[in-house]
Structures are given as C-alpha cells and as structure tokens.
C-alpha cells in the first residue's frame, strides 16, 4: 500500500481534530479532538519513518504518546474541577480571564 495515503489520512484526521477544537463547546469533546490531532501527528511521524526507512519518526511518536498521556491526566483533572465548580463542561463559559 502506498505510504502517501497514510499522510493524506493523517492530514484529514488533523483537520477534523482542529475543526473539532474550534467548533465544539463541550470540553470533553474538545479534548478528544486534541487527542485526534495528536494521533494524526503520530500517524504522520510513523508514515514518514516508513517512507524514509529509519526509526526517528517512530521514536518521536513514542514521545508524543507519553506527552499525550501526561496531558490527559492534567487536562481531565482541570475539566473535572471546572465541572465541579460551575456544573458545566462548556469551554465558553469560563471566560473570566479577559480585559
């Protein structure tokens, strides 16, 4: 199978993730969209490793997974805390940090 198709898939997934972040209001869904973007990037890394025939991309993909895992921990904790105080998971509502 042509590896370039994976690159295209990666681009599609990333775009869907980005749009999800921009459009959706539910913090959980936004979070999932962020994860989608991370995994799209991982897919691109792995595909490039395959195309170039070395392991660099795969190594970076592992790092991204670790960062994503850490991010999930922190992000979910924040979302849960916000939900507890405001009884809502909308990311438009906590807008106190402004002019």
């Amino acid at each position: 199978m042509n590896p370039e198709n994976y690159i295209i898939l990666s681009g599609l997934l990333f775009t869907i993730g980005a749009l999800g972040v921009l459009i959706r209001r539910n913090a959980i869904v936004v979070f999932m969209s962020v994860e989608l973007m991370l995994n799209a990037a991982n897919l691109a890394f792995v595909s490039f490793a395959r195309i170039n025939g070395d392991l660099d991309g795969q190594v970076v993909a592992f790092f991204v997974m670790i960062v994503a895992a850490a991010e999930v921990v922190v992000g979910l904790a924040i979302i849960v805390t916000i939900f507890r105080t405001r009884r809502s998971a909308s990311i438009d509502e906590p807008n106190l940090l402004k002019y």
Partner: protein
Amino acid sequence: MIGTGAVVAQTAPTLEPLNAATGIFGYIWLLIALPLAGAIILLTTGRLLQRWGHLLAVALVSAAAILGIAMLIEMMGRAAEDRAFEQTLFTWVFAGQFNVDAAFQLDQLSMVFVLLITIVGSIIHIYSIGYMAHDPDRRRFFGFLNLFIAAMLLLVLADNYLLLYVGWEGVGLASYLLIGFWQYKSSAAAAAKKAFVINRVGDVGLSLAIMLMFVTFGSVTFDTVFANAGEASDSTLTWIGLLLLLAAAGKSAQFPLQAWLLDAMEGPTPVSALIHAATMVTAGVYLIVRSNAIYDRTVFAATAVVVIGVITMIIGAVIGSAKDDIKKALAGSTMSQIGYMVLAAGLGPVGYVFAIFHLLTHGVFKANLFLSAGSVMHGMNNGVNMRRFGALRAAMVVTFAAFTAGYLAIMGIPPFSGFYSKDKIIHAAFEQNNIVGIAAVLAAGITGFYMTRIMVMTFLGKARWEDDAHPHESPPVMTIPLIILGIGSAFLGMALVYWGDIESWLAPVTGIEDRPLAIATWLLELITLGVVLMGVAAAVWVYRHNVPIEPPQKVSALTVAARQNLYDDATNDLVAVRPTWYTARFLVWFDNRAVDGFVNGSAAAIGGLSGRLRRLQTGFTRTYALVMVVGVVVVLATLALVMLP
C-alpha cells in the same frame, strides 16, 4: 584716574617679596582661630553656656585684639619694606594647574583692618552684653558675632582672592543671620533675605573676576596677579576692575546695589554698628584698594569707581536727610561716607591712603553714632522714630556726649577725626577733577544738614516722648564703650596723622602721590568747613520750631523721593523683580500648557489606544485557538513560499 596734573611726589607700591612669618607673626592663624572657636563653641554647646557664653565670646575677641596690637607693635619696630608677612597653612585646592594655598598675608593694609575689626569688634561685643541682656537668645547672638569677626579677619588676611572669597561669603552669611536675628518679625526676615539676595549679585561679580584672573594670570594669589598685571591686555584688566567694582558695590551698598542697607537696620543695633557701619560694608573699599595694581592700569574701571562713589555719596546723604528712623538716617549716612571712600579709592594713588584713613576714622565714629543711637533706643522702649524723641540730652548725658563727639567727627569739624580724613579725600578729589571735588564738598554740606537734623530731633528741642517712655541712661557696660569710642571719634584722626603717620605706613602697599592744587589747602579746608556750617545752619533753621510728631505731608518732591529711598526699591522692582516674576509666570504657563500638554497628551493617546487593543483579549478559549490556527497556517504558508522554490 581722571585728568592730569603735575606730579610732585609719587611712590609706587613696592612689590617686596613677603617675609616668612616668624616670631609672633607665626600666630596669624590664631587671629582667625580665636573668634572662630568662640563661634563653634557658642553655637554647638546649646544651653550649657547660656549663663557665661557671652563672656567667652568677649574674651576671645579681646584676645584676638591684644594679639593684633602685639603684632602692630612688632611691625612698627621693623623697617618699612620689612613689614609684610606671609604664612602658608596647607595646600587647599590642588587640581591640575589650579593650586591654591590656605595662606595668610599680613601687611600694613591688613594690619590696620585687623586692628579696626578686633578693637571695634571687642568694644561692640562688650556693649552688646548690656544691649542684649534681656534677649533669651543672647548666646546665639554672640556666636554669630564671633562668626562674623572670624570671617571678616579671614577676608582681610587672605593672601589670595579665593580665600578672600571665603571670608567674603562668611561675612555675608553672618550679616544675613544677624539682620534676621529677630526672625519672628517678618520685616527682619524679609530684610535679611533682601540683603542676602542683593549681595549675591555682587558676589557673582567677584567670582567672575576670580575666574578671569585665573584664566589670565594662571593664579589667584595677590602676589602673582599684581606682579603680572602689567602684561594683561587693557580690556581684560578693565573687565576685572569692573567685576571687582560690582562685588564692592554689593558688599558696600554702593549704587546700584544699595537698597539692602537701609532695611538691614532691622537687625539689633550692635549689628548695625559693627557690620553695617564699621566693618563689613567697608570690605568693598578694601577689595578696591587691595587690587590697586589693577585699577592703576585701567582708567575706565577706575573712573567707574569714582562715578559710583560720587553717586552713592550724594544719594546716601539725601536719603539720610529725610528719614525719621534714627538708624535709617545713620544708614543713609553710612552709604554716603562709604561713597567717599569708594570715590577716593577710584582716584588712584592720590586717594588709596585716604580711602583707608577715612575708613578707619569712619569705623570708629560711625560705630560710636550707632551705639549711641542704640543707647537712646534702649532708654526709649526700643523706639526709633526721632519725631518721638527730643530733649534727651539731660536724660542721657553720657550718650549725648558720645554722640556729640561722633557728630562733630562725621561733619569734619577740626580737630575731630573726620576733619583729617574727609578733607584729605576732598583735597585728593580736587587734585583729579574739579567736578568730583565740588560733589564731595556738597556732600559734606548735606552731611552737616542730616547730622544736625538727627542731633536736633533726638537730643535738643522739646520732649515729644510717648506716654510710657521713661528715658534713662544705659548701664556702664554700654556707656563705657561709648566713652571709648567717643574719645576715638575725637582723637583718632589726629593720632593717625601726627603719631601714626598713616600715609607713609600704607604707602608700600598702595603707593602714594601728591599733586599741587590751584588753591591753598587751608583755603579749601575753610571753604569745606563753611559749606558744612551752612548745612548745619540750614538744619537748625528748618527745625527751629518744635518738630511735628506726624511727618508733614506737604513737602518737596525731593523729600518725598528721599523718604522712598530715591525709589531704589521701585527701580529694583521694575528692573529685576517684575521681569523675573513675569518670566517665571510665563515658564509656569509654558510648563503647564506646552510641556505638560505634550506629556499628558501622548499618555492619553497611548492609554486610549491600549483601551481599544485590550478588547482583543475576549477570554473565549476557542477564539484564542482560532487565532493560533490562523497563525500557524500563516507561518506555514510563509515558510512554504520562502523555502519551496
């Protein structure tokens, strides 16, 4: 020097190398240190010395006087060219080519000043014990007096212009402190400030002259400046001469800087006698005579000195003739007499000696007159209005006798001391220029008028006392100084001419010159005496009836002007105060409108702009995310455009 004449006898000042100070002259520094120590002790120890601090001050000044007399005796025992001494204490300023030593020079000229300052100073210190007996701040008063004596001695003993300047400023400070001694009176505080500010104008002249000397001669010591004065250009010497004249005019209350002296009478009377009559105000005369090597070489500056002296001599006498305040009348007289000295100093070698001679006799008889006035005030509830005096001769016999001695001396009635000194100045004036001579004779006539006026209004006529006035003679601590000064007023002139031989004493420092006159000396003296007696007669005629208690309003324009000090305050107001005031007002307006407008305007513009810009911070997470995505897209697109061919 004005005009020319056949020179009969002339001696140029000899610029002998100064002798190293040995023997008793090794203690020149002590002359200054004694009163300075007194000032420091009295002003720093607080109430500790409240009870006997004034005695310490008197003792220290008297010790300086005794030391001065001992030096005089030692100096008189030496040959004329061997009488100048120099003592270097330490290097004071050491900066590149500018080197100044803290060094003293004691020569014949300094010597007579030292004696005048310390002896008259001691007498006035003693008098002040009685005069200030009831003042709670007597200790502070004596501290300031000692400070003045120290500064004045530094002024006349310095061997360079920079150290002289320190003394010059020191006496100015002491004068300021003492005029404003009763600072709770707003008039005294204002008078002190006025004296200080006007003196600053003169001081600028002195500092500029010193700078010009350093640039021209590379040194500010008297020796170097005078020895090289001949090599400087005429214009430089003229400028130095004019700047020194400005300094002298400020300190000696000469036209056009004379306005402060009359107000300075707000200070206690001993201060008026010591500082504003006998010593400090004559510092300008000292400066001019000391700088004779410069004035001898610049006709223009010397002529300016004469003109200033003549103007002040006349206006001082005119103002003194119209004042009802006894101290202000005497202050006008002081201005006039210093005008005589400045005039004489401007005449060149024919006049230097007589300027100093008159300065010495004036120092004694004017101190006498002021202290007598203080004694009168002491007995009259501190009143100064002569219209409420009258007939005090019986109540204050000693004061009256002392005042009479001073009265005869200042008018130049032979054989009182003013006769010897003032007639010499008139003689010297005629040697140079007839107009100056006639002005000097005229001023002598006005002197006769105003002094007789003071005499008649204060001591003669009928009593016009205020109801609660009980005139009485002052205590002995005040009358004994008056007696000493009265004797000095009577005999000092004679003593200095026949016994002291003041002319040949000062000649090595100042030079001397004698020219024949068209008329005989005795005839000139007779004419002068006649004019003085006419002035006396005029005053007796004007005040033959009882003096009205309220000053008459229907008087001549000259009297009105003289009561206003010949409009010197109005002139200063017009020339200096109002332009400064308006400039300040304009600058305040400019600062408020233009400078503040620019600063505030730009601040408001930035503030408004940021008020708009901060609206970008919406607080919506998704907005930020969108901006980020757009940013990334833009960066990537730019990179793609640049990197990809």
